[in-house]
């Protein structure tokens, strides 16, 4: 099965927010935003802007009828700045006009005076000054302090990982219009329609039932539209409400890049203790998370960093401390992996460093410490049905890692200015929102009298194929042709109180809800069939390929069955909720079983480094991944490839640079570079682990959205290995992304100093 939307996509017929036909009188918004990262607003003069051509109104925090507050986890984020501004790009006012150009012209006529305050961009500085989003969180088990003495090796170090711009191709946007019922309808590009609804209702001072949010699809999200789409939904809603007109906001790429948050940069200190045989006995890590100016999803991201602090390994004594630091940058937010990659990177960095010190190969240390079936992670969850060892072993044998190593060593002996490196990367990623209550979804299924089926859930289609998976699930419950099943837009009037489509769990949860709702209708249909065929109970009746079978004889068509049900006044609609069973987490002791299951696999990444120029090319990425019982080869492979390359980008060329004034330097696609078609590894090979299933996932499958991104971490260590081949004595910094600039300056440090 292919992506549900793909035929429309290739014809250019798929509609995104900015493609919708809009009513006459539509107004457009330019956001007037702060140009300084931290300041008190002394004076704003809108008079000239208000008289500018085409301006319908300028909206400030004073115009907000409800609460000026959109913070999700912590109520610390105003929609529009009041007295103070806390980051460059923070919205202050909305300039609403008949055209975008008129709104822009007017916005430059606003006069503002600031009293500048101290700007913090570094999380460690924020920590020292007590600028914390919340108190530090610690996950621990065993006793690291008493273990250090028992270790043959204790190694300490610092690792840095950078931010990452989502760069969804469709920028943030929303279109809102007032309804005659005294409410408002918002068409939003969001992963979380309920979040947009809740925030807008609060800002407008309306009950949630007066705010309807509708999403057909979004042009990429990657976490960037999980919480941060709410700002733009609220802004469109506020302007529409205030001016009683249809209003649209579509961020320009530059506004999107400078106003919205990104993946959290982390600066981390680690201490790792090992036996001389290479077993990790203790691991202590402190994560300084750069949260930006307000909480956003930072506390939840921090949680996941703590859950994935040791990646796929077993460590008996762990102390992981995570500190969310408030800085004067746009609030950082969810990004595919959600803090997991940041946690895993530090663990891999610690193992890599240990391997250098101990003279044991990095991959041997990785292998020695892989967690095994029945082991318990430091937060209390025991690993069951683990395929960690299997994926690692199959990767080693299928791709013959020893011969890869030989080939690379041979290449390196014979080449002076080009060096190759490779690295393995195991991934074990927990599936479920770590905030247990969010693990619920709902679905509404209608079977129409002509036999066609309509399905609404809380899932958002963003290219990950969730609609295809749900469609296939429903079609298989009724055993009808998939063409009969239509997935509706995601709408808060049909699916209420939804969790955002995130945490890789969208298909699992919404698919299960749709399955339950369909089964309720199925049960009724079977009863109708039993009655019609004069059998006592429905156990001898089955639906297969569009026909009703009594024992093995086809008796009725699907259409005849639905007609009969309709004629007999059977309810052909059903709503159902699914709550992921068996998960819990006690935050007072930080122990529990937070995940329904783990997504697992191993990758090998191979790179060629041009040591003259400091640039690199990826030769191959080879993977063995446990997909459970995969729904669709094309969809699952696509998610894997896409995530891997996003992970490679994060580790290598994607570099977010803010200057010390908090100004984003890489604020356009000309300066922020994501992988292009040439950057893609020459070879990507993906092996689906065989004979696996997963009862906790939809139809035996496993979640796939985020986990493969973390394979990209291997790219960093592959490059380090190539650098080591060029200069074996040098100790390299553990600082990602490892840009061509960092590579060159690290390869030639002595010479570089003499150049300046």
């Amino acid at each position, binding site marked *: 099965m292919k992506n549900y939307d793909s035929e429309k996509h290739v014809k*250019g017929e798929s509609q995104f927010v900015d493609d919708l036909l809009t009513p006459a009188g539509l107004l457009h918004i330019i956001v007037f935003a702060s140009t300084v990262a931290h300041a008190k607003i002394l004076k704003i003069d809108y008079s000239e802007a208000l008289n500018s051509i085409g301006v319908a109104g300028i909206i400030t925090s004073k115009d907000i009828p409800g609460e000026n507050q959109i913070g999700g986890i912590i109520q610390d984020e105003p929609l529009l700045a009041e007295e103070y501004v806390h980051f460059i790009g923070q919205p202050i006012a909305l300039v609403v006009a008949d055209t975008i150009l008129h709104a822009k012209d007017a916005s430059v006529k606003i006069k503002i005076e600031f009293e500048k305050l101290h700007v913090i961009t570094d999380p460690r500085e924020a920590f020292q000054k007590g600028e914390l989003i919340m108190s530090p969180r610690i996950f621990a088990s065993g006793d690291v302090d008493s273990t250090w003495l028992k270790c043959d090796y204790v190694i300490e170090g610092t690792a840095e990982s950078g931010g990452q711009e989502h760069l969804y191709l469709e920028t943030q946007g929303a279109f809102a219009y007032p309804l005659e019922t005294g409410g408002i309808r918002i068409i939003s590009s969001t992963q979380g329609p309920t979040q947009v609804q809740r925030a807008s209702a609060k800002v407008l001072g309306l009950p949630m039932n007066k705010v309807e949010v509708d999403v057909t699809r979004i042009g990429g999200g990657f976490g960037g539209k999980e919480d941060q789409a709410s700002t733009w939904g609220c802004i469109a809603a506020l302007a529409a409400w205030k001016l009683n007109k249809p209003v649209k906001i579509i961020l320009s790429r530059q506004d999107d890049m400078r106003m919205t948050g990104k993946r959290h940069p982390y600066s981390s200190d680690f201490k790792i203790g090992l036996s001389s045989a290479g077993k990790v006995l203790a691991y202590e890590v402190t994560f300084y998370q750069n949260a930006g100016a307000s909480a956003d999803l930072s506390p939840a991201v921090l949680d996941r960093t703590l859950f994935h602090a040791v990646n796929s390994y077993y460590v008996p004594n762990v102390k992981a401390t995570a500190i969310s630091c408030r800085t004067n940058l746009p609030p950082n937010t969810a990004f595919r992996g959600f803090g997991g990659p940041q946690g895993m990177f530090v663990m891999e960095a610690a193992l890599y460093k240990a391997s250098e010190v101990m003279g044991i190969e990095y991959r041997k240390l990785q292998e020695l410490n892989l967690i095994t079936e029945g082991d318990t992670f430091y937060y209390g969850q025991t690993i069951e049905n683990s395929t960690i060892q299997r994926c690692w072993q199959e990767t080693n044998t299928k791709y013959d890692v020893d011969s890869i190593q030989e080939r690379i060593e041979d290449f390196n002996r014979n080449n002076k200015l080009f060096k190759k490196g490779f690295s393995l990367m195991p991934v074990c990623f927990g599936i479920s929102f770590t905030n247990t209550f969010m693990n619920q979804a709902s679905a509404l299924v209608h079977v129409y009298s002509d036999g066609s089926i309509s399905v609404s859930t809380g899932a958002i289609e963003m290219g990950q194929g969730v609609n295809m998976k749900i469609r296939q699930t429903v079609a298989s419950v009724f055993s009808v042709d998939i063409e009969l099943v239509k997935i509706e837009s995601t709408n808060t009037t049909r699916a209420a109180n939804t969790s955002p489509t995130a945490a890789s769990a969208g298909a699992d949860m919404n698919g299960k809800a749709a399955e339950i709702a369909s089964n309720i209708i199925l049960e009724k249909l079977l009863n109708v069939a039993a009655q019609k065929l004069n059998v006592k109970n429905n156990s001898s009746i089955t639906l297969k390929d569009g026909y009703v079978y009594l024992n093995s004889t086809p008796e009725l068509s699907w259409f005849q069955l639905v007609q009969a049900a309709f004629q007999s006044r059977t309810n052909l609609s059903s709503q159902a909720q699914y709550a992921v069973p068996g998960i819990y987490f006690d935050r007072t002791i930080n122990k529990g079983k937070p995940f329904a299951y783990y997504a697992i696999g191993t990758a090998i990444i191979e790179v060629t480094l041009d040591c*003259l120029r400091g640039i690199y090319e990826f030769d191959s990425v080879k993977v063995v991944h446990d997909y459970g019982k995969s729904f669709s080869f094309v*969809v699952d492979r696509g998610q894997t490839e896409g*995530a891997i390359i996003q992970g490679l980008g994060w580790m290598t060329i994607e570099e977010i640079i803010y200057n010390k004034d908090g100004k984003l330097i890489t604020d356009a696609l000309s300066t922020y570079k994501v992988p292009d078609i040439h950057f893609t590894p020459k070879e990507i090979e993906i092996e689906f682990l065989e004979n696996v299933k997963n009862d906790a996932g939809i139809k035996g499958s496993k979640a796939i959205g985020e986990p493969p991104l973390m394979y990209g971490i291997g790219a960093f260590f592959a490059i380090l290995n190539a650098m080591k081949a060029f200069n074996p004595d040098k100790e390299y910094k553990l600082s990602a992304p490892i840009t061509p600039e960092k590579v060159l300056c690290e390869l030639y440090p002595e010479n570089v100093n003499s150049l300046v």
Partner: protein
Amino acid sequence: MLKTISFICNDKEINTDIHPATTVLDFLRKTLFLTGTKEGCREGDCGACTVIVGELSGNELKYKTVNSCLLPIGSVNGKHVVSIEGLNVKGLSPVQLAMVEEGGTQCGFCTPGFIISLSAYFLNNKKYNADEAIESLDGNICRCTGHTAIKRAAVRSVEYFNSQKGKTLVSAGLLPSFFSDIPERLKTLITKIHTNGDGEIINKYQIGGGTDLFVQKWEDIYKSDVNFINSNELDEKIKISGNECMINASATVTDIMNSEIMNIHFPDIKKYFSLFGSLPIRNRATLGGNIVNASPIADMTNFFLALNSKLYIIDGNSMLSMKKSPSAREVLLKDFYLGYKTLDKKPEEIISQLSFRIPSANSYFSFEKVSRRTYLDIASVNSSMSIETENDIITDIHVSAGGVAPIPLYLSKTGNFLLNKNIENKIISEAVRIALSEISPITDARGSVLYKKTLLRQLIFAHFLKLFPLIVKYEELV
């Protein structure tokens, strides 16, 4: 300024009096409501807005991909614009089918741009191969798939069309049938445009390709009167005159890299120039634009600086009033840049041509560019070197460096030092020291001062290592 603009969009003739600096992207989306063409970045860096533009060259209709976000509608007067809607046939075209089957589309936002670029590859080429088809997608960014599935779709499409030899693209299912009539329709349209005529005066903006102008100054252009520097497709843009090669300022990067003359004298030119922008940018960006834009990291300027090229500058007003070529003033390219974005050029002056001496048999050329991402990126540092030797003695040399000064830099001291020297490792090391004393890089998004200095050193080493592998030894350089 153009009053009426007439062109064919897909199968429909469009006549409009909209401002000629309106981008084709906005016109398609907001006036024609053809929303399959997407806006992703508005600076030619993502390709979501790619369209195909067809232009008559004599009797032949030539198609190119272009970023519609940087394409003023005035530039498509008399041309054929094809958006994704114009490629839709009944069912799916082979390219669309390959993208669906291989999973080349996920969220779908970038997809129309990829379909356009890949379809244009088959439209523009007679022979197809997978590598070239993939390269034709160098201006399109997909954030979902990581491009792997798209590469598979490109390979599959190539296989398909290679199996359809002898068929037209209409009968092979790539194009709707209306494409067959376009050449005749364009001829009629162009006749109509010529009889209308347009009053031309020198306005504030002279637009050639506009690939940087429309990134930086679109809104200002939109509020101003504009001229389009049109080149006639029939003109010979690159020619030999005596021992000089003459290139029209209106020649695009694509024109230059595909020129037979240039390929004879610079066998690696395709490799070098493929590092400049992306295919849709190269199809629009002109030599003259690259030079007057005066960006310190301009790639083409860097290339021609090392050929010690000469510029021919004419008075634009007199050109228009006399309707013929006025006499030109000559300036060496290395003397053209007076300071950051300051040129030896009056506002009414226009660069008409560039010339350089044809390299002799014992001369060598090297171009080097390093950027964060190898393709479709702005150089951190670029450098070119042309060198002529006799018995390992340097008899002529010109070196340029971009990204290390406020202007595209000609390294005159470095060249002077190397002239008449023997090619030796220690001479090269000394030349690097001199080069580093000539530059004044700043720290910006493309790297720190330290990095740019190190990089220039490495690139100068790279020139010599590549050209004189038997003499130059890396270990002796550092």
